[in-house]
């Protein structure tokens, strides 16, 4: 498993780089959480100095990094001034919600993109294929922000779906089954927005990868043996195209996280997105730092997952790793 270990090590190195980069970035920022308080006439200069001293903001940069790294090691990820609590406990439920949304969306998008892309790559049916091409091009050109707002409009207008949030009022009092249904019900629209955002590019990639394999001799041989078309496509062409598609899965995690940030804010899904916006507006830098790190961990986890899948799917890589 040398290959996988190397990938994981690279991931750790990148994570360390991100932590240093974002810490330096945050420390370069003019002003801090208490800067806004200076405008308040009820708070004196002396009080501000005491507050800063208590949180160690008056110390030199290396000492602050050491303090932050120590809190990282304790699993606290720094201290949020706006919430008056360590960052980590604020982060976990948000990470969970973002994961719920993005994994649902990824799974749905792939389940839709694979048959669509394979069908699109298959020969014949020129008119239908052109219609699909136009549909995908238009869908690609609709900005994610507009898709999210349009789905929100659907919810507001029809009342079929809840307009934002993750739970209904009185969620705590519901039975387990009802609570589950409640969350799924709230999940539909944000997940749909994400699926519609990533579907066009996924479908195009599936189509391109499958189209390459369609010319291969083994596909022609399968056709020559008189296999039904769907078995040629899904049983022979698609597995041969698996390699680039799994790499794409890893790459698409980054896009999905970025889009999810926006969709979560627009649809008030309590994931990382709304908290990040809140933290930026409150100039709560440790929280921003924690959120950025969390998103990086999610992205790297997605990449490593894709690597593991690639390892399982492609014997050539297994041999190379030994």
């Amino acid at each position, binding site marked *: 498993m040398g290959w996988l270990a190397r990938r994981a090590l690279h991931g750790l190195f990148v994570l360390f780089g991100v932590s240093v980069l974002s810490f330096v970035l945050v420390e370069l920022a003019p002003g801090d959480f208490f800067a806004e308080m200076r405008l308040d006439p009820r708070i004196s200069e002396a009080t501000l100095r005491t507050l800063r001293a208590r949180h160690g903001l008056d110390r030199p940069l290396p000492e602050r990094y050491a303090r932050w790294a120590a809190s990282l090691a304790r699993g606290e990820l720094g201290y949020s001034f706006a919430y008056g609590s360590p960052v980590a406990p604020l982060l976990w439920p948000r990470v969970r919600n973002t994961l719920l949304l993005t994994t649902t969306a990824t799974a749905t998008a792939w389940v839709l993109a694979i048959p669509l892309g394979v069908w699109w790559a298959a020969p014949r049916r020129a008119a239908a294929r052109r219609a699909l091409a136009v549909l995908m091009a238009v869908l690609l050109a*609709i900005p994610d922000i507009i898709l999210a707002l349009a789905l929100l*409009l659907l919810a*507001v207008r029809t009342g079929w779906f809840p307009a934002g949030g993750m739970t209904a009022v009185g969620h705590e009092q519901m039975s387990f089954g009802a609570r589950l249904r409640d969350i799924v019900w709230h999940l539909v629209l944000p997940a749909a927005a994400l699926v519609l955002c990533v579907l066009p590019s996924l479908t195009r990639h599936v189509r391109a990868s499958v189209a390459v394999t369609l010319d291969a001799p083994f596909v022609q041989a399968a056709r020559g043996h008189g296999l039904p078309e769907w078995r040629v496509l899904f049983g022979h062409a698609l597995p041969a195209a698996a390699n680039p598609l799994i790499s794409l899965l890893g790459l698409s995690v980054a896009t999905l*996280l970025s889009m999810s940030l926006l969709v979560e804010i627009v649809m008030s899904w309590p994931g990382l997105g709304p908290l990040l916006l809140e933290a930026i507006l409150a100039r709560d*830098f440790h929280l921003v730092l924690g959120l950025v790190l969390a998103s990086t961990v999610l992205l790297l986890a997605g990449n490593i997952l894709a690597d593991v899948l690639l390892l399982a799917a492609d014997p050539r890589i297994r041999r190379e790793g030994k």
Partner: protein
Amino acid sequence: MRAPGKLALAATVLVAIHAAALGAGFLAPYRPTEQARALPYAPPTSLHVVDGSGRLHLRPFVYALVDDETTAGRYKEDRSQAFAVHFFIRGPDELGGASGGWRLFGVEEPARVFLLGTDGFGRDQLSRLLHGARISLFAGLLATVLSLGVGWVLGTAAGFYGRWLDAILMRSADVFLALPWLYLLFAVRAVLPLHVSAAQAFLMLVLVIGLVDWARPARLVRGIVMSARERNYVRAARGFGATDLYLIRRHIAPQTLGVLLTQAALLVPQYILAEVTLSFLGLGVGEPVASWGNMLAALQRYHVLASYWWMWAPGLALVPVFLSYFALSEALHSRVGPASP
């Protein structure tokens, strides 16, 4: 559609939209900040050619809007007096005199012509859309120039000189690429001051969007430079004593042009959207200056979202812009050949 036709169509649409943005002062019937306080959320003004007595007019005319007494918040047309639409008129100057710049069209007060309705302050949506296009479209263009410029310089340096410079640059590129790009954008925006003037905000957005995303173009350029460096004619030129700068300028830079153009057509829409997103969330260009993002921000209120369809105008305007840029990138891609990813 055939590829050349597609390319021509996309280019025409883009040139027309950008020209409209540049000519906003002439095309827009009102100043973008001019408020008709009595007419918040007025629907698009309808142009008439047939008057109440059934007579046909060659010159279109409008009626003034008045409050509909039967329903609060609704308007109705005051049919007692028609106001003809005049073309090529002098707009009012800052003080309300008649010596402002030329306008394409307008009507006499008290009637007003709002072809795309008004927002919550009674400002003309069409005028704001045209003036906002200046901010949103050109922020995307400038950020692309910046990002590709930085990416090109670093990518060429890494690919041409290799060794430790390459190692350092590509490892930092890994770090930048490991952050989901919108998170990175937000994080950089987070550490910059929140309350800034519109001009500063515009400049800041261009810098942030352009500088945050250097890693992808740098990687692409690096790959091409690395393979170009090993070509025989480059080695020959080096053997004749050509300097590094000459080699890069004469033999290597032209090879990267295709990728740069294809990338540009892909990056511009992404960066336009970045500006729109940041301004939408109140982290970009703020009121009263118009940008497509802060115009869309009105839709965050449910009653606006559900009741006033004309408030979606900037969002709908993004679609043809994006379609054209994507078509352009596809056409460029097929022309430049499969060398570029």
